């Protein structure tokens, strides 16, 4: 992680700890899209993803302002919280939710139909991966996390994460190849 971003996050965290709403709004603006994306890929419903993301930010505020321990890596912490809420969601509903709609393309006029269809297939393939495999693929290739950061989020060693990611990509390729033929 870049040093300047880490320092910036630490300053924001310090301000939030003291009840600074503006700092919280900055964090919201900075991370809402990424967290929403992570959640929506996992729950496959925009409506549920919206509810979970709202709840997530409220919990982030409560945690930072009340917890005595400080957050070292904000980005990793946010995804850990998101991951926990998604897990809670699946625990309470105990079902797999259907893919609600095709990919919503914002400002994608320049993209041709083939690419869009292909992306829809990739997303479907992704949704067929087991939960943890899905997470590591999203974190690594959609959100751009490094192995060590993913390891911190999912609570595994970097080596185990690398193996997990390798297997997940292999499986995704298999699913997509099967769908094509």
């Amino acid at each position: 992680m870049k040093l300047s971003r880490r320092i910036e996050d630490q300053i924001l965290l310090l301000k939030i700890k003291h009840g600074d709403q503006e700092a919280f709004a900055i964090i919201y603006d900075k991370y809402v899209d990424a967290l929403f994306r992570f959640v929506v890929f996992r729950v496959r419903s925009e409506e549920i993803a919206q509810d979970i993301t709202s709840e997530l930010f409220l919990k982030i505020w409560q945690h930072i302002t009340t917890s005595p321990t400080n957050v070292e890596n904000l980005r990793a912490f946010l995804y850990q919280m998101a991951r926990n809420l998604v897990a809670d969601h699946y625990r309470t509903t105990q079902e797999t939710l259907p893919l609600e709609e095709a990919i919503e393309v914002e400002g994608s006029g320049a993209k041709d139909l083939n690419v869009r269809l292909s992306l829809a297939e990739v997303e479907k393939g992704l949704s067929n991966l087991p939960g943890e495999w899905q997470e590591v693929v999203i974190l690594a290739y959609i959100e751009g996390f490094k192995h060590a950061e993913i390891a911190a989020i999912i609570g595994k060693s970097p080596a185990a994460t690398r193996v997990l990611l390798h297997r997940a990509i292999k499986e995704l390729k298999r699913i997509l190849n099967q769908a094509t033929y």
Partner: protein
Amino acid sequence: MNKDNLIHQLHELGSIKRAPALWREQTRSRLLKQIEVTAFKPFSLAERLVYGWQQTRLTLAPMHLAPVIATVLIMVIGYSPFSVALATSLPGSPLYPVKRLAEKFELSLRSSSDSQGLFYLTLAGRRLSEVKTVSGADVATQAELFRDYNINLGFAQASLETGLPSTDLAKTYDQATDILAANLNVLTPAPANRQVYKVALDLTSKVSSRALALLVSQHGSNGDGVKSAEVADRLATEIAKVEAKLEGVEAKIQLFPENSPAPRVVITSKATVVPVAEASKQAKDNLAEAKELIARNEFGLALQKVQESEDLTAKSEAAVTEEETTTEEEAKSETELEETPATETGEVKGDSTEPTEDPAKPTSEVVPQPESGGAGEAAEPTPIPQQ
């Protein structure tokens, strides 16, 4: 589909998936209303320092100055005779400002909070060693070094609090603060620096307690990280320290005159005020309970008891020291009054019927008694001193 293509598609997927704009804005407004707070919590001094430091680093971060300047500095410092002279330079020496500058650069090269925290601990230790070499008469330098010690330890503490430190880090902090405390205890600050010295003692004890608490909690959460015997030993050392302090307190309590009212101490946990002897007994009981808890490997509870005991001991120590100082001052003022000639204090000892030194002076004119207390209160009206 090959792997590269798939990864490219996944990147693409990430770049097009966003939260709906309307929902994003509505949620933002709703959240900000929900989290509305009435009072902004003030920043502590340590937090202000951390905040200021982070802001400076943020400003300097895009400039990429550090590597260039550091390289130049390392080349200069790396020159051996200079390096030795620099490392051993003391306040007042022409090289000392260069040494401090080099420390700042070394710090800026450390990117993780753990490594920065450890370096701050090193710097705190260096400032203490320098205090030892400074003459007691140089009050200003001594005060500055104590202040720098406090600042460095404050930063080290902040880094300890950032995230969950590893067992090794908690152990290092624990050992380092133990050494720092031992070094601090042998120092004698100039009277004008007692306050800053007290802050240094308190801060060191605070960081040490926090490191110990982390060790205990890490034993609880991960049995492989800290061994039970290790935690038990560490707690036993802490208990021994408190017991030694308590002995000192009890010795002072014994010296109180029988009928004098004993100072009282607030027991925060019980919200009561008790005589100092009772507080010290309570502290002793807590330590006994802590020992039993340690024997049962209940380290968390044992630590709690030790901390309660430390708190009570510190309060009792402060109460008896205050009492002792007051008694000493009273005794001192009594002695002074007895030894001081009447012409200096404006008091006359002995029988008031005796003639004054100068019979020409009128005896009817008197001035008010000075507020000297003790023997002065019993003195007779004083004649106006001769001009």
